[in-house]
């Protein structure tokens, strides 16, 4: 093992450890997107209709939309703290490429937001009368989809990190980019619920994940650089 590769692995593990430690010591912040996810579901029966058949038809898409919104809300804090206390500057001056650091941060964000949302989704499924066949597909599509959402959302978070009230602008600029993920994610679950073939949409979602994995950390790193050096 050359010193170079050892250092990169060590640097990544140190970054990962830091993110997880920070999250563990500020546990209360982790629950907010999950609480939002659970609470917002009552708007539909209360605001529209509690009818079982109607809700069952809406359920796949609605759960996906709520997961998307919950993720959006959690994005603002992705880089904010590091930007404000100078850690981001140190990351920029370090030899470790910013794309790797972004990758680690996004991974932790997904682990602490996307995965819990995925695990909570069946609860919403029950409340919205999601057909039984669709549960597995819901979770798989959300498992991959939230990873895409975290990756793409990081670009928006990086662009708006230097703004004081960046949250709303963040949502505005990220939402058009979320459209393809939502389309294919919701379609997977919709097809499953109706007993139609769903593999195609799921595969497309997987392709999106790989594309995002390749491009988003680089794009976020560039955006962070712009925010810090401006």
């Amino acid at each position, binding site marked *: 093992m050359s010193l170079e590769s*050892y*250092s*990169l692995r*060590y*640097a990544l*593990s*140190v*970054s990962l*450890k*830091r993110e997880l*430690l*920070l999250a563990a*010591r*500020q546990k209360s912040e982790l629950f907010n997107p999950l609480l939002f996810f659970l609470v917002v579901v009552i708007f539909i029966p209360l605001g529209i209709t509690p009818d079982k058949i109607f809700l069952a038809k809406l359920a796949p898409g609605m759960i996906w939309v709520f997961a998307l919104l919950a993720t959006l809300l959690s994005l603002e804090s992705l880089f904010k*703290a*590091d930007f*404000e*206390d*100078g*850690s*981001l*500057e*140190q*990351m*920029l*001056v*370090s*030899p*470790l490429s910013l794309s790797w*650091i972004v990758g680690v941060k996004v991974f932790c964000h997904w682990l602490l937001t996307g995965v819990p949302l995925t695990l909570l989704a069946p609860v919403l499924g029950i409340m919205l009368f999601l057909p039984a066949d669709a549960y597995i597909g819901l979770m798989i599509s959300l498992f991959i989809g939230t990873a895409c959402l975290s990756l793409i959302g990081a670009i928006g978070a990086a662009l708006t990190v230097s703004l004081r009230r960046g949250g709303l602008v963040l949502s505005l600029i990220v939402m058009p980019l979320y459209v393809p993920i939502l389309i294919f994610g919701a379609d997977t679950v919709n097809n499953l619920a109706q007993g139609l073939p769903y593999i195609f949409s799921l595969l497309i979602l997987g392709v999106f994940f790989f594309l995002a994995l390749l491009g988003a950390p680089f794009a976020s790193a560039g955006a962070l650089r712009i925010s*810090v*050096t401006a």
Partner: protein
Amino acid sequence: MSLLRFDEFTCWRSDESLFNPVNFNLNAGEIVQVVGPNGAGKTTLLRCLCGLYDDYQGDIFWQNSPWRSRFYDFAQSLLYLGHNPGVKKSLTAAENLQWYTGIQKGIAAQLRIEQALAEVGLEEYTNTLCQEMSAGQLRRVALARLYASDRPLWVLDEPFTAIDIAGVSRLEQQLQKHVAQGGTVLLTTHQALAIEKVKNLTLEPCFDEVLLES
């Protein structure tokens, strides 16, 4: 040996030159203080040197080649301490240092980290969360980085902020020790330094009221 050479170097902000172009030579083993009135661009100069600011004119030569063209190598001999030190309050002093040395591609053993904290007088606070520390102690956690990594060039922006008198003289001693071992220090400070052989890099604000042609 010339370590850094500023060649007609100036920084711009909002289409205005901050200071008159500087020509300056920085050799290894020197302590250089950047002086100038408030707003002259001292912090901007340091940030630009460390790659944190891009709107500049002229060039800086590091080991006789333009520093941006070899920035990866340059960054590995550089240690930057800015206004915001980048110390996480939710982490302990040791964890902060471990992260810092880790991303700098150095593998600092726990012993080294403890020694670095001892150098700044925080040996009892190794495993204390930084949110339980005073501002001065937080600052010292950041300063501990100087001793936890082996970087020859120290670029320090107001390093004496929030440090008490004992800490100031300790840091001054450390700066002298660093240059005695062949290192170099480039810093800004409002403090009057009690160190000999400090060269000055003076920034004159650019009062070009003559409107510029674009």
